[in-house]
């Protein structure tokens, strides 16, 4: 019922439309102050205050006192008892599952390391068990979960939930995630590319709050990018928008799992970085390389810096084409901070079109490595329509 009606004929329908606008704005942001609500919806603070009061009484919203720039303010969020949402991030080598209330406050989470080349059948089975057990730990019945969002590290057709570039994640190529997980748990399931979810979370809950355009780059076993333009995630024709890991980095380079040659991922993915250090350092995980680079190991520092430079070169094209407000860097490699970001910025400044206001901001994600699973929570919440009471509220 919370449709897109803007201004109806009667006072009542106008009021209903305003309620829907406020609920949808609150749902969109997780939590928001009344003043900010006025800015977002264009309604007067008096109207906002009245409608929020009604909706709190109706059990749809809740308010908590807070402060903004030293002033007292009322923070508005959806009433927690409206339900829970579940988010799953399936990474190349780990799975994260989180449970949040409708204000997107995480109430329980779990992380499971995964073997390389893991497959959808066992992955979905374990995801379902983890969701069920998390729901149990918070003492809720599974029926309180409104929807499940799932992020997968491969291009996904968001209408069908299927992987559209089967070679990128072979073990998940044929999987019908919404059907398998949905049937198992009896809940709606939404699927998207994990980097798109990282970008979504960053735009709504992280550094991108209040900005319209951003690039989100995940650096780990694979290299992924999510693109937000005008506040919305860009998917492209078959969900493959933003696959920066598979743009050309080395002319005539070695063959990539995607089928192309010389991909950026082949140069700066974790396997490539580890291979460069194998003769002197033996077997290293990506987090070892980051830790050693930060501790002053020169060889590790150089490998991380080189990765920053190569990423900067690839990103300069994306930045020139899209002119984003900010570039957000996430994933295990982002832990290297300035060792990575310094060379990356230098390269971006040298190659992206110079513009007024200086070079684009480049920052490490503010969501502490959890952007993708938080994005899965946002995806699940967005899919759920919060009902708004109709007619007069007393």
């Amino acid at each position, binding site marked *: 019922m919370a449709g897109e009606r803007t201004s109806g004929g009667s006072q009542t329908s106008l009021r209903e439309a305003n309620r829907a606008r406020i609920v949808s704005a609150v749902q969109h942001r997780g939590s928001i102050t009344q003043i900010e609500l006025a800015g977002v919806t264009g309604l007067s603070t008096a109207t906002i205050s009245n409608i929020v009061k009604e909706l709190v009484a109706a059990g749809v919203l809740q308010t908590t006192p807070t402060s903004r720039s030293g002033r007292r303010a009322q923070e508005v969020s959806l009433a927690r008892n409206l339900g829970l949402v579940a988010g799953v991030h399936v990474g190349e080598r780990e799975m994260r599952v989180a449970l949040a209330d409708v204000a997107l406050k995480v109430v329980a989470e779990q992380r*499971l*390391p*995964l073997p390389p080349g893991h497959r959808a059948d066992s992955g979905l089975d*374990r995801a379902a068990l983890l969701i069920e057990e998390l729901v149990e730990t918070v003492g809720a019945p599974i029926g309180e979960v409104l929807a499940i969002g799932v992020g997968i590290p491969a291009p996904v057709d968001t209408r069908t939930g299927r992987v559209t570039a089967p070679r990128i994640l072979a073990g998940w190529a044929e999987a019908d995630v919404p059907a398998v997980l949905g049937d198992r748990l009896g809940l709606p399931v939404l699927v998207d590319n994990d980097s798109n979810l990282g970008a979504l979370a960053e735009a709504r809950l992280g550094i991108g709050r209040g900005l319209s355009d951003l690039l989100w780059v995940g650096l780990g076993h694979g290299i992924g990018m999510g693109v937000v333009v005008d506040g919305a995630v860009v998917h492209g024709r078959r969900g493959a928008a933003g696959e920066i890991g598979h743009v050309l980095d080395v002319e005539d380079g070695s063959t990539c799992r995607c089928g192309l040659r010389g991909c950026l991922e082949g140069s700066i993915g974790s396997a490539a970085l580890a291979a460069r250090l194998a003769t002197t*350092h033996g077997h290293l995980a990506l987090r070892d390389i980051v830790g050693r680079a930060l501790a002053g*190991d020169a060889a590790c520092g150089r490998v991380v810096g080189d990765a920053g430079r190569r990423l900067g070169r690839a990103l300069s094209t994306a930045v020139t084409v899209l002119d984003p407000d900010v570039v957000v860097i996430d994933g295990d490699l982002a832990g290297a901070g*300035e060792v990575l970001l310094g060379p990356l910025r230098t390269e971006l400044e040298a190659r992206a079109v110079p513009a007024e206001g200086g070079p684009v901001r480049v920052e490490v994600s503010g969501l502490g490595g959890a952007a993708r699973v938080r994005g899965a929570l946002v995806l699940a919440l967005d899919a759920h329509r919060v009902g708004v009471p109709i007619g007069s509220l007393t």
Partner: protein
Amino acid sequence: MNGRAGNRRGPLEGEPAVLAEPPALALHGVTHSYGAVRALVDVDLDVRRHEVVAVVGENGAGKSTLVGVMSGVLVPDAGEVVVDGRETQLTSPGQARGLGIATVFQDLALCEDLDVVENLFLGQEIRFGPLLDEVAMEREAQRLLAQLAVRVPSVRAPVASLSGGQRQAVAIARALLGEPRVLVLDEPTAALGVTQTAEVLTLIERVRDAGFGVVLASHNLTDVQAVADRVVVLRRGRLNGEFDADVAGYEQIVAAITGVAIGPGEGR
């Protein structure tokens, strides 16, 4: 910002020679028999710091015997043990612990009726004069569990009230109290549900990242491949392959475990 002088240096100068460091624990030519049954034959194994080495194999392949040798419970018939570059003998569990090899057996050896703190410090209590320093032990327990991000309802909860994953975590924390070099884990995820397996695997990664060498004996290849750096295969008491866990395929490792010949070009 960071004027890294390293850029001007040669590739090796001034860098920690990672591969030149002696392994934290190395076994050479270890052989052990139970009567006429040869459980281990000429087995070599080394573990470095910051490394998880998984030992896999079928039942009866020799995993438990190898764990027994490393823990000092079994004295091998032949072979040498090198700890931090020094040759030595493991003749008793106490001596193995003294050399920095801590073992968590499958049965965990926890006392059900005692609480978490009492279990952690059983036999290694902190004393204040003639009395037990309960405050210091509780504080140390909190610190250790927080460092490992282990979640228990309370450090004063009896172990009987904990889940399988939490018990495993308490047993691992107890093994780490003596600041060992190497942690040996025997089937840590056997009989655990998926949530508890998730907790234990994450804990193993954290222990490794803290600088310990970890030996993980397990028959669950999914769990092994999730956290191991190297996988060593035992078959009928002998080494039957060693794999880089990031690169090796499941089928390759299974072939080594079961002894199925693998075609040329497929093996490593």
